[in-house]
């Protein structure tokens, strides 16, 4: 046999896949652009929280009834603003971003007579912005209470420590990069999705698509061996998946420049080094996933049937990374043995700035290699049995 039929098949399938402009455009829009877009949208949200936190403003309904409280708040460095007309409606419609503290008319006199006046904190738990501010208001009111009671005790010659027998100190062990992963933790997920949807169309088109078009039978009547046909197709599908993955990884780098939140931008450390690591981690997975998708699709008579059959695989790849996010116990050893979850784990390590370790890399490589071998072997076997029934 002259030449390399596998190479011939690879070149043809690669050209064919790249000419499918409409599908590629959809994949680029949905998987490659989606990650950065969500990131930028999220940064906008975080920025609005931050600006609210920095504004140090408190909204009170009935300022005139509570000079003592206003005095306390101002001493804490907060500007006190009167509540606008119809604030309940505005909170419900998310037009007002701050919770409102409602002061009763007889607040001052009741306070003096120690009758425990009631302040009402009005917020809407469906209104996320007002929710963020209500925690701060609660702390301020607690502070006001503590000051009042400490003063009252001091007048009676009792130490303020009676009220607070225990103090709570805080120590946050997270370094900036680990804190960043709370938000950047979804990056690996987007990269995995990009690989999945990049591989999906090409894998179905080169297997079930060939059968649907009626071009599989003529192809098998060439003197090239089925294995070389499959190898060429598999390499092309993997290459397309990898191309989409590379685009997806590197699209996060320019996305960082558009981040609107300074804190997020500082936490989000994703440079060329991280992007290259991502590509290295995802490449074996792209190859294995391509082989599996082809194996699922090769027995189907049409692309539509193949899409239905591959739904389970698609669902598994989409949901497995979530195990890493949802599992409160954090990373466990078996995660490395499950494809998709393992890649998610390794990419998260890269984001945290941790070392990958030789053993985890070896495990994921081995799992991917076995899956790819099984997939390619199965497709070749189906083609060898010549597929005509």
């Amino acid at each position, binding site marked *: 046999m*002259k030449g390399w039929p596998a190479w011939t098949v690879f070149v043809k399938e690669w050209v064919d896949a790249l000419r499918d402009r409409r599908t590629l455009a959809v994949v680029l829009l949905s998987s490659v652009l989606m990650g950065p877009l969500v990131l930028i949208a999220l940064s906008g949200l975080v920025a609005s929280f931050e600006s609210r936190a920095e504004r140090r403003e408190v909204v009170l309904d009935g300022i005139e009834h509570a000079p003592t409280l206003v005095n306390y708040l101002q001493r804490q460095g907060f500007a006190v603003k009167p509540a606008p007309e119809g604030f309940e409606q505005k909170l419900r419609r998310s037009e007002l971003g701050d919770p409102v503290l409602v002061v009763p008319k007889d607040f001052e006199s009741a306070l003096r007579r120690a009758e425990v006046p009631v302040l009402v904190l009005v917020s809407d738990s469906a209104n996320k912005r007002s929710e963020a501010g209500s925690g701060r208001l609660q702390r301020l009111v607690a502070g006001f209470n503590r000051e009042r009671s400490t003063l009252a005790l001091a007048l009676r010659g009792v130490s303020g420590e009676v009220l607070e027998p225990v103090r709570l100190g805080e120590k946050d062990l997270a370094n900036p990069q680990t804190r960043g992963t709370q938000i950047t933790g979804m990056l690996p997920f987007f990269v995995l999705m990009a690989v999945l949807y990049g591989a999906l169309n090409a894998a179905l088109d080169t297997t079930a698509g060939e059968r649907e078009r009626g071009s599989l039978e003529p192809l098998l*009547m060439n*003197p090239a061996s089925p294995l070389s046909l499959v190898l060429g197709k598999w390499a092309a599908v993997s290459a397309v998946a990898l191309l989409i993955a590379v685009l997806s990884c590197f699209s996060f780098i320019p996305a960082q420049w558009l981040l609107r939140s300074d804190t997020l931008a500082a936490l989000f450390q994703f440079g060329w080094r991280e992007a290259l690591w991502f590509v290295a981690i995802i490449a074996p997975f792209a190859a294995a996933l391509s082989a599996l998708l082809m194996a699922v699709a090769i027995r189907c008579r049409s692309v539509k049937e193949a899409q239905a059959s591959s739904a389970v695989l698609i669902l598994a790849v989409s949901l497995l990374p979530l195990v890493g996010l949802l599992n409160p116990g954090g990373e466990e050893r078996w995660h490395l043995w499950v494809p998709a979850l393992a890649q998610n784990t390794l990419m998260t390590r890269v984001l945290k700035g941790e070392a990958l370790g030789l053993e985890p890399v070896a495990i994921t490589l081995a799992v991917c290699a076995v899956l790819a071998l099984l997939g390619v072997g199965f497709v070749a076997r189906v083609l060898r049995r010549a597929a005509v029934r």
Partner: protein
Amino acid sequence: MIRIEQLAKSFVAPRRWIGRAAAPVPAVRDVRLEAVDGRITGLLGPNGAGKTTTLRMLAGLIRPDAGRLEVDGIDVAARPREALARMGVLSDARGLYPRLTARENIVYYSALQGMAREEAQARAEALAQMLDCTALLDRRTEGFSQGERMKVALARALVHDPANIVLDEPTNGLDVLATRALRETLQWLASPAGGSKCIVFSTHIMQEVERLCDSVVVVSHGRTVAQGTVPQLRASAGARDFEEAFVRLAYADETGAAA
């Protein structure tokens, strides 16, 4: 030169979860055929006679249960790739790649046949000239008409200049002009100027066979029931009209029972 001896194949129905497996369906029971170089041999039979199954076995796509298939003395079962290299097959599935141009479709197959790039390009040009479709070469095959598709598929099958050409119902879906053009091409290929190819083609259309074939093999219910030239078959069936002769030969059991 293609020789088929006592070919048989039956299909096993896929196993079901419940109940007994269905009995195997015999598609080909005893097909014999001999096609020599420089002649056009017609494989004539009604729908479901086993023509396509026979040709698929010849192309090595299905393994026969019994019998022997030979291409230029090469056993297809033992050395399928060598046999395929000596055959150009236009099967009833003749899908093209819609996103590739006609030329790319043809050159892809020549590369799979192991031809060099320049050689493949020259061959594509020559085939396009022969099939009168040079204008189509650099268009994508998306939206080609039936006749245009057939021409590209035929060019693709002939790209390695095989000594044996096998066509499964090539005139299906073609109009008069396209059919006539195909007929002329096949006659030229069988002539010494065209390379004295051995051509086997299956059909269920009498007129095709009458006009084109040097010899005819009549297949019915998976068996070869008659073999010879058109006049020979007419004489053996005792009919003046070829269609009448074919009906008597192919449906011998049914018409005999009715009479």
